[in-house]
């Protein structure tokens, strides 16, 4: 064993584990076990994803025909606002750190728990509070501003935007606390022998994410205070009716939301590094390059917010600088892709469900990243900005990237989390359906956009109908894929085979303990003598 747990062999299944150690609802609500908290995050974010997905399918259904298909314009506008806001704030930002990060990070370090277990529980409660608050203000405020809440449009909806921002800020607080917890945990709770360069790359990615969370989220708080000063005290800041500057709001908004985009993608990238290496049974290629590129993305990511505003009336000088920096941030992402590629080289690739998702990720994220180059070029962006081209681009990155990585990670660690194996055949089927449906839905939208179809359009020119219909049919295939996936995973809970401690032959620490682990994670604190990707035969 590469990372041996001193002397004692690993028990495949322990009699008691973190799930059956205690019973009753309170044992969950008051738990401080990072694994249980992770599972509760998992359930909550998946519910959010299902909700957002439902709205997405309704949106696509509406777009089957120009004008009214199933809902009126006002409802459509609320539906895309809900879809976007739920997906971004309730699902994709908290999902990977909250669910997967919480579960595996401490185990990967050989720790018993995170540094501040109670704070961790508080994060979860803040997430629930913020989620309910955001959802209820979105719904009761009838918010139809899009998830970007641009002023002055959002000023017409009364107090709703302040409430939603407050909700998002509560959610932000939850992610600040998670970030803080992870940073301290990584610094302080590494088991003997786990040096910085023996950290699994997921830990590096989560670490970089945490830095961004801590630094960017306060800006949201500042925005909120300014919004309130404007609404309550009528000091003109953003609203031109009061003498404010609406473009300033966009600066504030993107100063948070652009780094937030990296909060969304970095952890996903971390997952991919784990899956590819383990299922190709090969030492990761370019460990340091991947680790440092995460940090580089996190830092440069703070300086590119203006690329959302090339045509929004910022100065041409500013646009030029932002375009330049945007191209720089493309480089570390490229470095990661090339290194993953070489990790396949002379590997031993097994087509398990997690690996199929990781390979899908490579395909989709490459398209998402490359089409970002179009958006970064000032003259080209002038044509495609706020068209379906951009909708396609960010779905390729967020869904093709993060969501696919997330479900890949879910399948990778599912045996560890639940102690059950799911069906590989159904797993492969669900991956294939999502992959095919995704490309049908969203590749079409690149064509729509470049041909001049603007985004957030309820009605559209007749000439776009065939492509819109194709895209809608694609969305049904995605939906079907997720239903198959949900069935496969849920069925495994009752009828799945028992999972061994290390079903994939992984070398990082979470595979060196029982499935599911005991509450303390390890019987004995592990002593680590090798890196997490050491698949060389002498350590088999």
């Amino acid at each position, binding site marked *: 064993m590469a990372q041996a747990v001193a002397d004692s062999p690993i028990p495949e299944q322990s009699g008691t584990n973190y799930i059956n150690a205690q019973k009753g609802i309170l044992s969950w609500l008051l738990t401080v076990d990072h694994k249980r908290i992770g599972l509760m995050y998992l359930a909550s974010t998946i519910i959010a994803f299902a909700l957002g997905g439902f709205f997405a399918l309704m949106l696509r259904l509406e777009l089957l025909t120009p004008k009214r298909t199933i809902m009126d314009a006002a409802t459509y506008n609320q539906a895309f606002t809900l879809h976007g806001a739920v997906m971004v704030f309730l699902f994709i930002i908290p999902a990977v750190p909250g669910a997967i990060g919480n579960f595996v990070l401490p185990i990967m370090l050989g720790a018993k728990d995170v540094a501040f277990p109670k704070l961790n529980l508080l994060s979860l409660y803040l997430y629930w509070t913020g989620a309910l608050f955001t959802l209820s203000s979105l719904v009761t405020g009838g918010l139809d501003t899009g998830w970007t809440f641009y002023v002055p449009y959002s000023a017409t909806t009364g107090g709703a935007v302040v409430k939603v921002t407050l909700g998002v800020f509560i959610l932000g607080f939850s992610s600040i606390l998670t970030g803080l917890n992870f940073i301290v945990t990584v610094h302080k709770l590494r088991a003997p022998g786990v040096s910085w360069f023996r950290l699994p790359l997921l830990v590096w990615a989560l670490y970089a994410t945490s830095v961004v969370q801590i630094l960017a989220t306060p800006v949201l708080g500042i925005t909120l205070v300014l919004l309130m000063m404007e609404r309550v005290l009528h000091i003109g800041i953003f609203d031109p009716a009061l003498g404010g500057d609406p473009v300033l709001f966009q600066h504030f908004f993107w100063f948070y939301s652009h780094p937030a985009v990296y909060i969304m993608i970095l952890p996903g990238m971390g997952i991919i590094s784990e899956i590819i290496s383990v299922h190709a049974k090969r030492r990761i290629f*370019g460990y340091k390059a991947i680790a440092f590129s995460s940090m580089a993305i996190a830092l440069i990511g703070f300086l590119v917010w203006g690329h959302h505003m090339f045509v*929004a*009336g910022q100065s041409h000088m500013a646009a030029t600088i932002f375009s330049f920096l945007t191209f*720089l941030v493309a480089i570390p992402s490229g470095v990661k892709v090339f290194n993953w590629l070489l990790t396949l080289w002379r590997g031993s690739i*097994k087509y398990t469900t997690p690996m199929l998702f990781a390979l899908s990720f490579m395909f989709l994220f490459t398209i998402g990243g490359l089409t970002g180059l*179009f958006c970064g070029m*000032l003259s080209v962006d002038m044509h495609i900005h706020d068209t379906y081209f951009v909708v396609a681009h960010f779905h390729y990155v967020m869904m093709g990237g993060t969501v696919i990585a997330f479900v890949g990670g879910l399948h990778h660690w599912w045996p560890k989390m639940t102690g059950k194996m799911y069906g590989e055949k159904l797993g492969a089927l669900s991956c294939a359906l999502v992959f095919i449906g995704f490309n049908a839905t969203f590749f079409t939208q690149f064509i729509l956009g470049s041909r001049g179809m603007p985004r957030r359009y309820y009605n559209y020119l007749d000439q776009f109908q065939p492509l819109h219909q194709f895209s809608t049919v694609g969305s049904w295939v995605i939906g079907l894929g997720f239903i198959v996936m949900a069935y496969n995973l849920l069925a495994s809970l009752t009828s799945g085979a028992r999972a061994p401690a290390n079903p994939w032959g992984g070398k990082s620490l979470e595979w060196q303990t029982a499935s599911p682990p005991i509450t303390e994670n390890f019987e004995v604190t592990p002593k680590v003598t090798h890196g997490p990707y050491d698949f060389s035969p002498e350590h088999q």
Partner: protein
Amino acid sequence: MIAPDTAAPVASQEPIHQGSFWLPKAVSTLAPGVDNAWNIVMWVCVFFFVLVIGTMLYFMWKYKRRSENDVTSNIDHSARLEIAWTLLPLIIVMALFFVGLTGFMNSAVAPSDSFEIQVTGERWLWTFIYPNGTISPTKLIVPKGKPVRMVMSSKDVIHSFFVPEFRIKRDVIPGQYTSIWFEATEAGKYTLECTEYCGQGHSDMLATVEVVEPEAFKQWLESGGEDKNMPPAKRGEGLFAKWQCGTCHSLDGSRKVGPSLKGLFNRDETMNDGKVVKADENYLRESILVSNAKVVKGYEPVMPLFKDTLKDDQVDALIAYIKEQK
């Protein structure tokens, strides 16, 4: 000759003219530059896509697991490769940056002899005001082969001015002026789309851009684009279409954003303060010019004010038309 607007459609439905598979036809002097940039970045992407995905598929086939005892390579880094795939892409993206910048700068500075048109965006109507005072809602008429500069501002929320065939886009912001210019290279009708989300009518906030020969443009500009000899009700019908009253008012009794105008004349209307007013000529006049003076019960005061845009004889024509809606 450009026909006076008698029956302009409620919202423009000009198709976007397709050029290549990806892009619309290029109809401005700026467009070829953008298309050129598009083609360059497109081929760069195709190259990298084939490189990455091709290699991936090859490895997937070549290094498929044969047995559980497969021994895999232990080579875990290569400084040379890391440097190569940092620097080469860096050079390429810097080149892309400059290509994009050039096209953008061309669009930023209008030639000094540009013809200037004021553009106002408001929910959900584009209005174009020419230097001689001619006002043209929902229809932007411009001469072919002459640079035209748009000086744009919004009356309410942010909108964005986008003409796909011209490859130009710029936000239209309240409380600020933004500008953009183009020189159309081919006569014809094109569609202007609003590309910054602005509410319920966002996707209907279109306008027709009509590029005409300079001679015809001059004539149109002088006539103010209207035939004053028509019977008032007929003229009113044209104005009703031109100013897009139909987006908010139906003529068949059904409710839209505003009340239906069917059978309105001489009816008793209840206002939101409970007062009942008879819808006579004076009421109609006031409702059209300063709609928020009296607000009909059950409706929001969202109708644009027309006091600065409609002339007296135009209001008369509109009233004559409304009277006919029995």
